[in-house]
């Protein structure tokens, strides 16, 4: 019997500090057993449990794209016990990865316009999605791609080099924004994500899906904007966070109504959420 609780051993290959507050670090992980990489076959939007022996596990969205071979990337916010421990680790250390976990919605998005709306450190799986869609082998499967991504300040944006590169491309419409900045050289937007969404996002129609990932306050104020723009609730896709342990719908803690966020989510359409208790 395959043991779904057993993590694949991985080595930390590289650690990149992403933000000026140093609370977000990206861990590039390499499988110790090359066969495991094949078994860990994932799609953007899924997550994995990072396992630190002696500390425990933590569910983290996968930041790398399946089109990037030879490694996995996770961007980890320093919050609790396990993430704090991870932040103190160094390249060469051994940890574990268990997954991929959660569902994805790429069958739905095929052939559609995709509007990505992200805020703060929740941008990780959205990075995965963007890299995936921009891959030369995949780009023709999607129509227009829009990205609205905001952070408190320029120094708090994740993946700044990649953002700059995407800005120069013509197959993706980037709308980067910050809440505020005193940097005179800042050449992108200033304003909260809901405001920028209202100004820049295309109107909703049956061919357009919005993917939202961000802090609850951002989601709360973005949703009415999308309503106004004509997005129906089954065209708004959101990712939820919950305390999780097993990640496979068995340990029982991450339910909202009859759904387990770890297994039946973490991605839900707003139409699905409308029929679930507001307990998240």
């Amino acid at each position, binding site marked *: *019997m*395959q*043991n*779904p*609780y*057993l*993590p694949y*051993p991985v080595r930390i290959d590289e650690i990149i500090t992403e933000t000026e507050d140093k609370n977000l670090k990206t861990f590039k992980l390499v499988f*110790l057993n090359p066969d495991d990489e094949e078994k860990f076959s994932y799609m953007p939007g899924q997550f994995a449990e990072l*396992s630190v*022996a*002696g*500390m*425990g*596990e*933590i569910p983290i969205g996968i930041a790398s794209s399946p089109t990037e071979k030879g490694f996995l990337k996770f961007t980890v916010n320093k*919050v*609790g016990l396990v*993430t704090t421990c991870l932040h103190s680790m160094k390249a060469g*250390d*051994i*940890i*574990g990865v268990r997954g991929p976990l959660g569902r994805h919605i790429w069958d739905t998005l095929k052939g559609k316009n995709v509007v990505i709306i992200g805020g703060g450190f929740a941008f990780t799986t959205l990075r995965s999605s963007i890299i995936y869609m921009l891959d030369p082998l995949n780009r023709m499967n999607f129509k227009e791609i829009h990205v609205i991504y905001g952070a408190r300040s320029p120094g708090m944006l994740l993946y700044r080099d990649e953002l700059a590169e995407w800005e120069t491309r013509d197959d993706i419409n980037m709308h980067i924004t910050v809440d505020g900045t005193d940097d005179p050289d800042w050449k992108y937007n200033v304003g909260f994500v809901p405001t920028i969404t209202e100004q820049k996002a295309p109107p909703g129609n049956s061919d357009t899906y919005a993917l939202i990932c961000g802090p609850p306050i951002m989601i709360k104020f973005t949703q009415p904007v999308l309503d106004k723009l004509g997005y129906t609730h089954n065209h708004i896709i959101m990712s939820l*966070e*919950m*305390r999780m*342990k*097993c990640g*496979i*719908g*068995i*340990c*029982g*803690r*991450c*339910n909202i*109504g*009859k759904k387990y966020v770890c*297994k039946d989510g973490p991605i839900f359409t707003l139409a699905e959420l409308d*029929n*679930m*208790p507001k*307990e*998240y």
Partner: protein
Amino acid sequence: MKYINIDKKNWASGLENLYGNYRLFGPVKNNKHHVLKELGKGELPDLNYINTLLSPKSIVFPQSETMFEYSLDESKEDHHILKEINKDYSPRALIGIRPCDAASFLLVKRNFDTPEYKDPYWLSAYEATICIGLACSNPCSTCFCTSAGCGPFHEDGLDLLLVDEGENFIAKILTPRGENFIKSAGWKTEADHMAAKKTIKNMKMKAEEKIASFVSTDQLKNKSTIDLYGAPFWEKIAFACINCGTCTYGCPTCWCFDIQDEVSKSSGIRMRNWDSCMYPLFTLHGTGYNPRNTKVQRVRQRFMHKLKYYVDKYGDGIQCVGCGRCIRLCPVNIDIRRVCDIMNNYDSRSRLET
């Protein structure tokens, strides 16, 4: 279906024969209660009991269970790599388990045995376990099994059903595993098929007539989750609750667990422990945010899970076998029968009118 007559004079010698082929578990009276315990050689289960204090779930789902082990000693080649450990999954027999408790395993199995993921610990232990049921001829007043999809002579989940006739047991063989068990014990006397069938039928009817409490569940499926979730009665239901985990720990169908690492010097284990939706920590995010921060929310979760979410998810009844333990154990007398009826009879429209 085969019936065997077990003369009680041959009961001990049969168990003696089984010892060694199976790990035997059965009810034993400690100073106050009947508890389920592994029987040593020559030790007999005490079958003169109503039910065990706690459910038998710990036999397949221990309250604390080691999952993996590892070394943190960096001089070792496989340091920090989690490894599976050998566990004893040799055949075990639960002797005298009540039909409700055996049925609970089937409800719980749906959680641990899914199309996508199999829980190897629960499943291996369950597959190693054979259930020798003891029919309830004298159910207690808090039993409501017959209205919870179960009953005092219920057979689902059992390999063998023992019916106490005074001088002897009639053993109804329900599975090949039950048949092997009987053979292994050396109980050979076949009972007259028709007579045994008739006796059991009569006793079953009498036992079912003795069940004095019921829940109504017929409307639960039709109710809207959102309506029940937002119903005004939860504050009153939850008021007395002290948010201990007694109901969940005693319940045969509560399966939630926590995963923890524990380290001693340079070696560590990853283990799982029973957890409870009654505890605030159960859903506390790393950020400090808690979607079920209040007692009312947590009590609602427990009852909604058992009586609505489960009903909707699997479509064939509540996540409860009516064993009544939560009623007997609750320190503040929160009674699932009362809650179930309130939920089943709740009409959100009448709420708007009043």
